[in-house]
């Protein structure tokens, strides 16, 4: 498959790996902040081919994992609204909230539907005007424009039975907050390629300019990641940190202006709760007042009891890169993919799930 297979070629990988080994004489800690990177690194066993001097840690890059229990509980309460169906990405279905999950709600007879695209949910609303379709919007800037476009389309078509519950979040300010905690000593960031396809490279410049961190916007195939590690190494050695784009076929420095415009028309920044990072001002995306009749959080009663965190769960620390999955006492013993305690184990791209599933 074009633009995929070439970047998985082991022959091409070998010289990059060897060059990395040649260049890596000082210890370096690099953080990736995208769940898809977490999975790709684990799935291709990349930590095993990198030199020991390079430490790759995972940050708050899985939008499912950083969704607070409160938001999950609210989505679950929407599934219990009579005459409503919650349409959700597959990623969220098994994630546990305080007492339940969308999968459990479905087992209990609630209408929970898995969709691949928010447009599929829109179609469901059009096909049956008697059902209230509530779309559970989770995801960063890659996904938010698709939900924005769908919400605007619903408004345009005058649909009265389509709603969006937004738990969308944005990345750059969250990274700022993470660094502000001063918990982990980092040398550089592997930045999310597809979020950057939307927002471009400029929003990350403060990482290099104010924090002196090497930054490379990376694609997701193993060769992309390896090349990005090499670029990060070179940047760190040159002591001239900047934001470079490895994923040049997928990212333009200006991002996607049309997508940004659509996102801004439907959403505005909000202060929201991140699992592991607490409340970070301006990092959420809430539907604008003009779309309030589509906003599930305004239209429906969303009073839920205070969220309960699972005892012993260290997802928050895992998400901040402070703790690796294996450091958590629950990992693999009490918290497994079939009996997950926290979202890092159940999300397809949670660090704990990746560590458990791929053994790395």
């Amino acid at each position: 498959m074009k633009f995929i297979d070439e970047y998985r070629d082991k022959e091409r990988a070998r010289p990059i790996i060897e060059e990395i080994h040649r260049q890596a004489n000082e210890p370096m800690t690099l953080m990736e902040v995208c769940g898809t990177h977490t999975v790709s690194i684990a799935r291709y066993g990349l930590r095993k081919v990198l030199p020991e001097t390079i430490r790759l840690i995972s940050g708050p890059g899985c939008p499912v994992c950083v969704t607070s229990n409160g938001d999950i509980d609210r989505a679950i309460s929407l599934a219990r609204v009579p005459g409503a169906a919650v349409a959700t990405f597959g990623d969220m279905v098994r994630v546990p909230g305080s007492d339940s999950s969308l999968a459990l709600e479905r087992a209990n007879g609630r209408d929970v539907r898995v969709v691949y695209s928010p447009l599929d949910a829109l179609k469901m609303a059009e096909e049956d005007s008697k059902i209230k379709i509530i779309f559970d919007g989770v995801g960063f800037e890659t996904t938010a424009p698709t939900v924005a476009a769908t919400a605007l389309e619903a408004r345009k078509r005058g649909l009265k039975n389509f709603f969006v519950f937004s738990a969308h979040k944005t990345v750059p300010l969250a990274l700022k907050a993470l660094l502000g905690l001063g918990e982990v000593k980092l040398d550089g960031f592997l930045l999310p390629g597809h979020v950057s396809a939307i927002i471009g490279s400029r929003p990350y410049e403060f990482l290099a300019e104010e924090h002196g961190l090497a930054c490379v916007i990376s694609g997701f195939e193993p060769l992309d990641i390896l090349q990005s590690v090499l670029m990060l190494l070179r940047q760190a050695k040159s002591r001239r940190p900047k934001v470079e784009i490895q994923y040049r076929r997928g990212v333009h420095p200006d991002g996607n202006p049309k997508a940004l415009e659509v996102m801004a028309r439907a959403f505005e920044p909000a202060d929201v709760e991140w699992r592991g990072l607490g409340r970070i001002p301006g990092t959420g995306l809430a539907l604008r007042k003009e779309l309030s009749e589509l906003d599930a959080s305004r239209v429906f009663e969303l009073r839920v009891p205070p969220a309960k965190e699972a005892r012993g769960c260290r997802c928050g620390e895992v998400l901040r890169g402070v703790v690796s999955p294996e450091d958590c006492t629950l990992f693999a013993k009490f918290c497994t993919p079939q009996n997950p305690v926290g979202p890092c184990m159940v999300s397809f791209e949670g660090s704990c799930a990746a560590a458990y599933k791929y053994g790395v």
Partner: protein
Amino acid sequence: MCVAIPARIKAIEGSLADVEVGGVLRKISVQLTPEVKKDDYVLVHAGFAIHIIDEQEAQETLKIFEELGALENE
């Protein structure tokens, strides 16, 4: 957190397009990439094209890998 896959545009009709990945076809929205043309490759995420792939840049990236390989063999 973003599974977005390179797919080829086979036909465009308004804001929708038929794309193909490995012989599998799907209808997606090209609202977010209005400049798209037939035979372009786009990144598809959640049923939308989010970026038109720059083929030249893709070639450049592959060339860098090859150059590293050539250096190796010198």
